């Protein structure tokens, strides 16, 4: 079986939703909420893969402060630049984490931040270019109880 990262993410996301329900968890965001946020940001366009890279650990060392980086491949000229990037976490009480706005004067479209993750979930980054095209990357980040490796 060949499981690509993307397939693994889809499978993982399904599992999170399926297991969250019977345990009576508080109202966490869902995949649908996250989709809604993405669509609002893109104006209804489905983002393509590519151009944007999300840099995040596979397993968080500390769920309270997870380092996340995004970079977007763009010349950042007046003709072609990244307007903004949103970061979403589909398992937090509210999916919105951060919005970064850029101009051609930014030079490069790159940003880092730290975010809190309540549990294992997907983190999504979407970039909007000045020509209206949109790109997405995502990664599952595990938040574990820890302590039994070795």
């Amino acid at each position: 079986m060949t499981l690509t990262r993307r397939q693994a993410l889809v499978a993982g996301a399904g599992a999170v939703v399926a297991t969250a329900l019977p345990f009576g968890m508080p109202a966490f965001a869902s995949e649908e909420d996250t989709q809604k946020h993405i669509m609002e940001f893109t104006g209804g366009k489905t983002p393509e893969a590519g151009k944007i890279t999300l840099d995040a650990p596979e397993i968080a060392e500390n769920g309270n402060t997870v380092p996340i980086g995004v970079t977007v491949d763009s010349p950042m000229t007046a003709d072609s630049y990244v307007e903004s990037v949103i970061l979403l976490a589909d398992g937090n009480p509210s999916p919105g984490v951060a919005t970064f706005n850029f101009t051609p004067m930014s030079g490069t479209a790159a940003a880092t931040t730290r975010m809190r993750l309540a549990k294992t979930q997907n983190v999504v980054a979407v970039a909007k270019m000045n020509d209206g095209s949109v790109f997405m990357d995502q990664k599952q980040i595990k938040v574990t109880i820890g302590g039994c490796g070795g």
Partner: protein
Amino acid sequence: MISRRDFLVASAAVAGLAGPGLTGSWSRAAAQQALTEDDLLGMQGYGNVTLLHLTDLHAQLMPLYFREPSINLGVGEVAGLPPHLTGKDFLQRFGIEAGTPEAYALTSEDFVSLAKTYGRMGGVDRIARIVKRIRADRPDNTLFLDGGDTWQGSYTAQQTQGQDMVEVMNALGVDAMTAHWEFTYGTDRVTELVDSLPFPFLCGNVYDAEWDEPAFKAYEMFERGGAQVAVIGQAFPYTPIANPRYMIPNWSFGIREEDVQANIDKARAEGAELVVLLSHNGFDVDRKLASRVTGLDVILSGHTHDALPDVIQVGQTLIVASGSNGKFVSRLDLDVRDGAVHGYSYNLIPVFSDVIEPDADMTALVTQLREPFAADLARELGRTETLLYRRGNFNGTFDDLICQALLSQRDAEIALSPGFRWGTSVLPGQAITFEDVHNATAMTYPAAYRSSMSGQMLKDILEDVGDNLFNPDPYYQQGGDMVRVGGMGYSIDPTAAMGSRISDMTLLSTGEPIQADRDYIVSGWASVNEGTEGPPVWDVVENHLKENPVVSVEDTSSVKVKM
């Protein structure tokens, strides 16, 4: 103790069984009735570079018994592939006859009787002999690399905070090392020991958490046999998750695949003709990494304690798995010319302590290092009628003994014991010594806590550890075995999705299902949380043995595996 003569006689007894050898000549030698040191070490040199790899020694200075797993499942695309083969399947895959020395060394098949036949394995004085002999033969060609998990796992290492192992490894003449359990001595002690090393401590994937700068040197260039060799170190990526983060708060880890690639490229640009990753990733992570980076010739893989008699090739990368506890030293000879590898020859050298001559200088050093603790180490705490072992995905009889001790000494309903892969074996009829107990428990966060946990919390823990072991993407695995459980049974489907592998959780004392909203009294040890209170687990086990000096632990049937 078995003498060399006994070993030879035993080998003669299995002569009729022995088949063709795999990579070395030791199987044939056994078939010819006399296994000698020359059979194990007299291989022809090949090429111009010899890599010697020792990993996951876990501070075991003396020859020992260590039973390999009978269950070591792989999930997803690695199901049924080495190292996820055990017993007869393993023997068949590598063409090994049952009953031979290599069957004893590499599997759990017929372990007790073969242990009595072939004796203990390992011992750093035997390892010193191997390293010296190969270096004498290949003085300008040999690199000796330590894959980590070297400074922890014994009473003497615990008492000296790793100092005994540093002295031993210095005497062995290590050329470079990487690390995992070393970090559990905490930032100050690790820094102190690393500063004292006469060789580089390589961890390309460890960063200063505050400044996001490399915390250690990533790689070292060596010249061997006229070739430039780059050795990149890769520490265990999940050290601050699997072990206490509060002990090393300023270091951040991770697989950091992009950094591995960047370091390979940098080393190549500096003229490296052979690029080696000295890795504590674990085998499945290394196999995936090999498929995703370019320009990496060799991965010397550690952490998951797998011993494979052949290299596994992924693309252009050769992966070597050298076992644990000093049972094996790997030798990989490479023909490196014009910036490329043109061929290789591999031997997984089994350290049969009754066949390999101890190195006198190292024997003297080990005796000196153990002398202050000798009386304690030899103290007999009890006797076992059954084999005590740890390694395996779901349970081990030594862990069952620890769980029994936690249940009775801490008056708990349920006991949890971590799924570590270190810890030596004790044969039926042997005394359980103070040293044996510490070989199974020696660590810097040993408090045996007693606390209340809901059934939901217990399920979350089992699911969490289950996913660390069985996530189909190796990059999400941590490489330990399943947490051991006393007083509770459960079923597990390793192939199910995250969060839904565990079912049928049952309180064994009543036979009732575990209820999500009920609280249970739980005792366990090795919590990664700061401020955990309780007596050290070795005291709990010692007290239990005082009250129950005759131990008999059969393999548990309380964990059911569904696939």
